[in-house]
């Protein structure tokens, strides 16, 4: 042992010398290259080196390596580190340390900015002398990392592939696995390249990989298939011969192999859908895609559920399959199609050609015997038949979901199949797992364009309305929106069930109304005969007038009015109060009730609807014109400019109210103009003309204006979706002006210079930041505040605060009003709290000290990334405020630009005894550079909890 120590110390000293030479050399090179002295950090690699030398036992070395692996290594020092590692590698006897070094090499070669070709030779070198299989596998992994880092270098790739082929015959499965992986990832794609490389024999990577399909170890077989799939992913066209090989693997004992094989078969079937393959046991031939479809269908009844899921999923994407195969998937009857018996004529012909004739000694000895291969007989040779029936009845819900998905995709591409699979889909509505039910409802909705529901099917569908899950009910409402119903009884049934649903779950109100709207407008003729019954009118007697606030009654009316839109005879059946209710609903729920052509009534609203399209252009024009006009205000006197701005803002606001499509644009520009107006007003203040010290208090207006402009600019930046960079520049520019204003105001109102110094500096920093951030946009800002400011920047930097303020003041007055380019699509973010409803009468009660959960339901429109920005705020009557972050899972996304927040807010308080109002607000958080202010944005309902002591 002593001897060993001695040796170690010696080598340590030697190497340290070498090292100190190495570094200056590198530095020099760099100096030449960049002419800039950059200090390299030898500490990292040197420290590792010392550690490794200190390590007398492999275990210690391992610990050092583990510690080392945690720290990142800079690209410049990677090579040095690699050299040290390699050096240690050669000396090391313990395979676990070598293993770690090998994996570190792989990690290091992945470092960004480091070109690993220099360490490849060494890696291959140590590979050749390595005995431990595990280390070998890890080294091959390292080579893979190197190879993927250098995708252009063909020579290196060839060499690596060569190395992989050499080690393919290794006895360890791990090594073979890695070799195959390497081949899959690096195997050359084009034949032409192999021709050029004269030294290396052209290798057919596919053939080599294909040979390992029959390896003895199942893991290697899987790896081989995966490598083949990898080749396919990289764009290599697989040979058709692989199909047969893959088919053999379908009956492998190991599920991983089967699962991968199914995938491979699918890939081949997509590559060669139309080529012809023979059916074993008969002379017939079928299209490859059909054969593959049959085989994959067969795998739907595999023993392992992983394979079943895989197979069921892939079925969905095989659209080229022939329709009779497709339809067989829904039929459980066994077919003999794939094992067709040959005709007598064919058999006779075969006998003749083989030279065997009946001896005639025994009757019937030449009768054709069907040769049955005992290995090939499945108890149920199913092929495609009943694949979906099996899949949909599978015990694992994952398989069922996959089957439903596949069914959906196939049905979308084939209407006739959609018709046939309807029954099966409807059955899935009764599944025990919620996810499956939901999936099948969604599927049904997607294919509902070309189907009509029968009454019994509708019955099953409607039964789901009693489901306790809100998601499922709402999905079903969506489905009912776009289904066709065949009979009037069906409509009646649907209405009755929906009303039942409404009484059971009052929260579904909006969704149900919407559903009935579409149901009515889709089936006007079916609704017509139901009207008297639904409105309970009587030919002779007047009936009692129903309660107008009853949601169920509204629901019925929504159905009828929507049907009446395309059915002019219907209004004749209405009684008087119905017309009154129509007028009321048309006003209060205009999105649900369409404009009707009612006899004896003015067509108030119908005039609007057709003309909307024609009016759109003029209003757009109007918007443009008024904005154009505003931008000329530079030439007006201050008074005129203010008036013009005020008028334009008013116009824009009115326009936004009238035209919902333009609301976003109008609001956005109005806000901008308001900022400008405030700025002008602030600059028109009398205080500027008076000597500074006299006006300490009166500058409130100006500073308030500055604050308001800031606030408005933040709103402009964060509360609208679709704001582009062009606008952001302008907004920031406006904010900069506001900051300048603020600075001036403070300069005039505060005595003493000390605080001013800081403020000036900060302002100049902001200007600097603006310049750096928007450098590309500066040319557009000709003649603006910033433009002038930047011209004077050198002077500002050196002058005193008082002077700076003076310059700023004059510049603010002189600067031009910037034109705000309008974005294509802009929408104001908005939110509505549906629940808790503000006017709720019954307070929530809870025990003191415990927690009550308050359901919050809100819709958000045009909010970007609501998961991170939307918060809920709870305001207690004692002034306490709480910020609550909803879970990401609480946000649903029902449509583009729309989000729904359904969450629970927990309230607790120990000190109350009486009912109080609690305010719930939604907040939109934004983050501008450093600060994270919260902007109160939409306040909603209140609740009044009562404390029970």
């Amino acid at each position, binding site marked *: 042992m002593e001897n060993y120590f001695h040796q170690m110390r010696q080598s340590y000293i030697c190497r340290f010398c070498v090292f100190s030479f190495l570094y200056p050399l590198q530095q020099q090179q760099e100096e030449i290259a960049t002419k800039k002295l950059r200090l390299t950090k030898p500490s990292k690699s040197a420290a590792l080196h010392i550690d490794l030398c200190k390590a007398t036992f492999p275990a210690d070395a391992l*610990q050092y390596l583990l510690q080392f*692996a945690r720290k990142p290594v800079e690209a410049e020092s990677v090579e040095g580190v690699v050299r040290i590692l390699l050096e240690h590698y050669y000396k090391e006897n*313990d395979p676990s340390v070598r293993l770690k070094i090998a994996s570190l090499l792989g990690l290091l070669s992945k470092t960004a900015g480091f070109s690993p070709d220099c360490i490849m030779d060494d890696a291959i070198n140590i590979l050749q002398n390595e005995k431990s299989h595990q280390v070998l596998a890890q080294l091959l992994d390292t080579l893979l990392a190197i190879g993927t880092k250098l995708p252009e270098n063909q020579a290196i790739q060839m060499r690596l592939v060569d190395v992989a082929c050499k080690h393919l015959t290794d006895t360890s499965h791990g090594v073979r696995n890695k070799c195959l992986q390497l081949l899959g990832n690096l195997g050359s794609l084009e034949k032409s390249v192999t021709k050029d490389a004269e030294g290396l024999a052209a290798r057919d990577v596919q053939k080599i990989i294909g040979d390992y399909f029959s390896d003895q*170890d199942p893991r290697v077989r899987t790896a081989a298939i995966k490598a083949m799939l990898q080749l396919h992913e990289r764009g290599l066209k697989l040979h058709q011969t692989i199909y047969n090989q893959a088919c053999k693997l379908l009956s492998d*004992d190991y599920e991983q192999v089967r699962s991968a094989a199914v995938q491979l078969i699918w890939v081949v079937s997509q590559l060669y859908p139309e080529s012809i393959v023979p059916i074993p046991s008969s002379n017939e031939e079928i299209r490859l895609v059909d054969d593959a479809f049959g085989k994959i269908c067969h795998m739907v009844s595999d023993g392992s559920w992983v394979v079943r899921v895989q197979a069921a999923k892939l079925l969905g994407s095989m659209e080229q399959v022939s329709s009779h195969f497709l339809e067989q998937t829904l039929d459980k009857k066994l077919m003999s199609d794939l094992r067709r018996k040959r005709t007598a004529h064919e058999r006779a012909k075969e006998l003749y050609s083989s030279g065997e004739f009946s001896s005639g000694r025994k009757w019937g000895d030449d009768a054709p015997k069907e040769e049955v291969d005992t290995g090939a007989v499945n108890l149920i040779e199913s092929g495609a038949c009943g694949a979906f029936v099996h899949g949909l009845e599978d015990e694992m819900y994952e398989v069922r979901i996959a089957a439903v998905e596949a069914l959906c995709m196939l049905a979308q591409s084939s209407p006739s199949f959609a018709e046939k699979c309807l029954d099966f889909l409807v059955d899935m509505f009764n599944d025990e797992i919620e996810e499956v039910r939901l999936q099948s409802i969604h599927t049904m909705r997607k294919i509902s364009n070309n189907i009509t529901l029968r009454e019994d099917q509708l019955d099953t569908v409607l039964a789901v309305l009693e489901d306790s899950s809100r998601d499922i009910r709402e999905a079903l409402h969506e489905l009912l929106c776009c289904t066709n119903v065949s009979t009037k009884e069906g409509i009646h049934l649907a209405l009755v069930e929906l009303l039942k649903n409404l009484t059971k779950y009052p929260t579904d109100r909006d969704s149900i109304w919407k559903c009935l709207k579409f149901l009515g407008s889709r089936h006007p003729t079916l609704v017509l005969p139901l009207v008297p019954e639904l409105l309970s009118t009587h030919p002779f007697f007047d009936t009692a007038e129903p309660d107008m606030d009853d949601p169920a009654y509204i629901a019925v009316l929504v159905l009828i009015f929507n049907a009446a839109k395309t059915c002019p005879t219907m209004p004749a059946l209405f009684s008087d109060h119905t017309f009154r209710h129509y007028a009321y609903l048309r006003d209060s729920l205009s999105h649900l009730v369409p404009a009707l052509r009612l006899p004896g009534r003015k067509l108030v609203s119908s005039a609007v609807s057709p003309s909307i399209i024609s009016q759109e252009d003029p209003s757009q024009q109007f918007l443009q014109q008024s904005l154009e006009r505003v931008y000329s205000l530079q030439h007006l006197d201050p008074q005129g400019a203010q008036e013009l701005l005020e008028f334009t803002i008013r116009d824009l606001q009115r326009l936004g109210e009238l035209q919902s499509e333009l609301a976003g644009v109008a609001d956005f520009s109005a806000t901008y103009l308001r900022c400008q107006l405030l700025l002008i007003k602030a600059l028109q203040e009398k205080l500027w003309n008076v000597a500074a010290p006299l006006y300490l208090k009166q500058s409130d207006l100006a500073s308030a204006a500055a604050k308001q402009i800031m606030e408005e600019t933040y709103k402009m930046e964060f509360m609208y979706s679709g704001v582009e960079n062009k606008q952001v520049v302008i907004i920031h520019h406006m904010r900069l002006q506001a900051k300048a204003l603020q600075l001036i105001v403070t300069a005039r109102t505060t005595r003493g210079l000390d605080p001013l110094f800081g403020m000036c500096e900060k302002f100049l920093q902001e200007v600097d930041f603006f310049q750096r951030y928007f450098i590309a946009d500066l040319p557009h800002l000709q003649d603006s505040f910033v433009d002038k400011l930047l011209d004077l920047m050198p002077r500002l930097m050196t002058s005193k605060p008082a002077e700076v303020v003076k310059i700023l003041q004059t510049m603010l007055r002189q600067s031009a009003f910037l034109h705000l380019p309008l974005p294509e699509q802009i929408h104001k973010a908005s939110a509505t709290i549906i629940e808790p409803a503000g006017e709720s009468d019954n307070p929530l009660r809870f025990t003191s000290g415990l927690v009550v959960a308050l359901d919050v339901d809100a819709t958000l429109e045009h909010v970007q990334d609501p998961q991170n920005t939307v918060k809920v705020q709870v305001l207690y009557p004692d002034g306490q405020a709480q910020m609550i972050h909803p*879970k990401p899972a609480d946000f649903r996304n029902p449509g583009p630009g729309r989000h729904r927040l359904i969450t629970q807010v927990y309230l607790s308080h120990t000190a109350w005894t009486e009912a109080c109002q609690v305010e719930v607000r939604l907040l939109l958080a934004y983050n501008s550079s450093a600060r994270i202010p919260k902007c109160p944005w939409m306040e909603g309902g209140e609740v009044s909890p009562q404390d029970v002591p």
Partner: protein
Amino acid sequence: LKMYCLSGHPTLPCNVLKFKSTTIMLDCGLDMTSTLNFLPLPLVQSPRLSSLPGWSLKDGNAFLDKTELIDLSTVDVILISNYHCMMALPYITEHTGFTGTVYATEPTVQIGRLLMEELVNFIERVPKAQSASLWKNKDIQRLLPSPLKDAVEVSTWRRCYTMQEVNSALSKIQLVGYSQKIELFGAVQVTPLSSGYALGSSNWIIQSHYEKVSYVSGSSLLTTHPQPMDQASLKNSDVLVLTGLTQIPTANPDGMVGEFCSNLALTVRNGGNVLVPCYPSGVIYDLLECLYQYIDSAGLSSVPLYFISPVANSSLEFSQIFAEWLCHNKQSKVYLPEPPFPHAELIQTNKLKHYPSIHGDFSNDFRQPCVVFTGHPSLRFGDVVHFMELWGKSSLNTVIFTEPDFSYLEALAPYQPLAMKCIYCPIDTRLNFIQVSKLLKEVQPLHVVCPEQYTQPPPAQSHRMDLMIDCQPPAMSYRRAEVLALPFKRRYEKIEIMPELADSLVPMEIKPGISLATVSAVLHTKDNKHLLQPPPRPAQPTSGKKRKRVSDDVPDCKVLKPLLSGSIPVEQFVQTLEKHGFSDIKVEDTAKGHIVLLQEAETLIQIEEDSTHIICDNDEMLRVRLRDLVLKFLQKF
């Protein structure tokens, strides 16, 4: 045969065993003690907690340590021994390239799912707006106050997983039953055995045909609710990996249960409330059973028991349906039919009520004084946080710690000053050292492997020499991030012979009792199983009939040469040589054998133990003659 030790925690082990071309991970426990460094996550924002000095709300809840000792994508299977030891599963199966399978018993999976669900639920319902990670930087960490400064491996702490990750991890599990034999790639067989610690907890036997490794983790010899431990099957193992012994070797579980009951009764009689931070499954069943018997005798039958957990209902129901995994007398109840656990009766008589959370129904039913069972035992998240805040101010109330995983003083730290009474009666039914030595004596493994902590007495009681494993030969110990070479070599491999081939063998008796036969066969290997098949016959001459026959592709096999055996007696050989007309024979003895010199023919015959060489100059005739002479002395097969 190597063992990679990824976790240093003795009760939450994570080891990787390389055994005969398979890589097996044994357990993956999640060390949650790092959560103690964080502030409690209250359900409703608490002004007191967020204004505590010296603490700040750090990023979510992050735990776990795993080292990069081994590439996790090479792990073929994971064996889970009990539900506490699978909490890190999502970290391993997701985002690491893991492609293998996980094996566990059904109760383990179901209850493990409940535990994970509860954990995710507790943490997700109070999301954090921002997370800090800069502090994990070494330089900054140095400046932090002491508990954080000393925390090791901070960089490996991670955020809690999500429910999707849990589901996808659990979908990789294959269910197994006790004593079921599972083949891994034909190379290794693994078998779970009952370990008696929890519902569905298991020890594993990993064996090939000639070697056997037993993995004992979290076993118990006490009769509580689970099936008793299976010791007999552990016999004859070459290596026994021993982990998961009791964490408080000095405490007697029975005594602790008694203490628990009496403290509970005392508090309730004085009008206080009792809070029991616990996991939703496991010891709570036993506690409820004890209380069931105790409350009537103590006159506390009017005191309500509340069990609050998102998975409370499922946990209580699941425990009743896993009849086959229960101990014998509970199993026999099922046939009466009666629910095996008495908590069913407690629920029926409304003495025990369970709620998914603290809000909702619980708020209406709440009566004081009461006993509340709720999680999480670390007091850092879950509903227990709320109760600590609510009841902490009154000295009438009591919190009783029963789970041994967390140090109760540290757990209580953020709640100080605390008026409520704190009782620590940890109940750990796992093996103690006396039971271990008894077990080892009975099982007689050749080698024992255990965590380092078990080979020396605990640091707090260094004089207690009885609190360590004592066995012969001394146990091999491992530490975190260590690679252990287990001290035995594989020597034999099993090869099967096809019956036809076996028929054709003709054994010859060489010594009494030992027969030999030569086998000429083709070794066929498939799925790591080796099979000797009869060699393919040389192609038969085809019959005269013109028959279209598909000729099988018979690989050309070489003509088989007979094998020789026996030794050549030198003297007789020389005599024979002389008989055949060779003269002038010299025999030299060498270290290994003899050299026979034929000077006349300038020929040399080396006879050694395992080889014979005839060296002559280009005289093939002579060589053949000599060869034939040599062969006469040898036996042929």
